[in-house]
């Protein structure tokens, strides 16, 4: 319930010079623009487990993580004439490096 702000209320004797004192009243319309919150909307029981589960079931976001263990052994030997490979890699066979190319 509100008062129309366009109303300006002044004392009756102030309206003009020698204005008489009179009783004044304002007709306020009986119009309601707000209401109180219903009790059980305001104080709903929140079960943390239920809320958690509800959010969990509807969630579609995943952040997968893995421990990534690489197993690698028994690499083949070979030969090359490319100097950086030949001079630095334990993978190459020096005899074949010299004889195959």
């Amino acid at each position, binding site marked *: 319930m509100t008062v129309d702000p366009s109303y300006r209320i002044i004392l009756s004797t102030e309206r003009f010079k020698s204005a008489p004192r009179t009783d004044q009243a304002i007709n306020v319309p009986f119009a309601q623009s707000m209401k109180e919150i219903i009790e059980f909307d305001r104080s709903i029981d929140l079960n943390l487990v239920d809320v958690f589960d509800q959010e969990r*079931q509807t*969630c579609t976001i995943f952040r997968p993580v893995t421990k990534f263990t690489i197993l690698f052994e028994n690499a083949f030997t070979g030969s090359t004439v490319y100097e950086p490979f030949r001079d630095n890699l334990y993978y190459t066979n020096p005899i074949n490096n010299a004889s195959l190319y």
Partner: protein
Amino acid sequence: MRHYISYAYGNVYNKTLFTVEPDSNINWTWVASDGIPFYIVEGSDKLLTNITFKCPVEHGLTVGEFVYMSINYNGNQMFQVSSLGDPAYGSNLYIFNLRNVGYTGSTFVTNTQGTFKRVINAANSADTISEYYIRKHKIMTTPDCTVLSNAGFERNIYGDKTKCEIKSLTPNQKQRTSVKEGSRSYTLAFNCDIDIEGLKDNQGRPLTELFFTSIWRGYFGWTRNLKQGWYFNTYLENKKPQTWWDNSNVNSNVTIPQYSYNSLLNKGPFFYNSFLTSGDTIDGDFCEWNDYNQFERVISIYQHKIKYNENWFRLDNPLPTSNQPGYFYRPHNPIQIGAFSEYIEEGSSTNVVGIPDYAYYSTLSALFRWRDKYPYGYVDTDGVGVDFPYLNNAHYPFIDTIFRITPEDYNIPSDYASLGSVPANITTISDPVADECE
């Protein structure tokens, strides 16, 4: 290596496949949708009570089920499985038998080859026949999303080994410390969220599986022609790599672009594989799906083969340069993010509310069939289900992944049986021998 997250989103039915039977060197070329290849070990010409079929992969059959074969006897292609295996341990997974009721002619003679599809119930073959296909994956992340960091100080059993080599033993006559590098463990995570909302798997169901997809990058340059195949392509063919892996076989080419560069010494070309990005597709495992029992079985795992750049690094063996041994690895490592029930629900739309959209409608029983998707956090008495942390509006599934890079010709027991040792002409790097002074 570059790492991504992918999921199976579709099936490819017309993929050409090839394999050999490691003991007999019988080979097959077939199309994925044809089913599982077989050859007859003991046919009707042997006049035994059973006709014995052997497959290069696990057949997935049980006694009493049926096989729909590519060969026919008087027009009949459906036969009931009477027993599995032979006296050898584990053979029941690869061998099945039909009762020899007196078949004549050439249909079931020894060494006959063909393919079959599994049928649960011959009276309802339309509903109960299996379909076979290659699973297709779609990449969900970009290379920038990957976060790979050392998993503490963990190292695996193959640690680094070093050796001082005096100058008279080195190619450039300079003393050096040779290092044979081992491998270690990493933590692989992604700095972008994986949102599965609205995504369906290759059978039109909600996603229950993601994959850590790892692709060989090879920027070092001494590999080229990354090839693809399946586990059944690891068997040797006449003690050599299968012809499937030959450079000339376009069916084993990967769809990943390959680029090249010249080194600072102006030598080259050195080859490397392109990045994948979100939305790219890549092949996956060879699978079987049956509408009636709503179950997908992985028949053979998808593999990549790394081959050396023959221009700059050669293996010392007499095999043709176009088909040299290489290294296998498994690109897709699954991580379960959901689970379907062990039981199968069945009901009609008039009596049951909430039938999922992925349910299969059986024309014989006029009922829908499906498996329920378990909620997160629920694990049934058989251990089926997922229960991983949920925090900050995200699920955090975790698995331990052992990523093997396996040299060809190794870890194949059947080859050891026939050869008695590692195949000749294949040499591997031995550990450096260091004496106490070093």
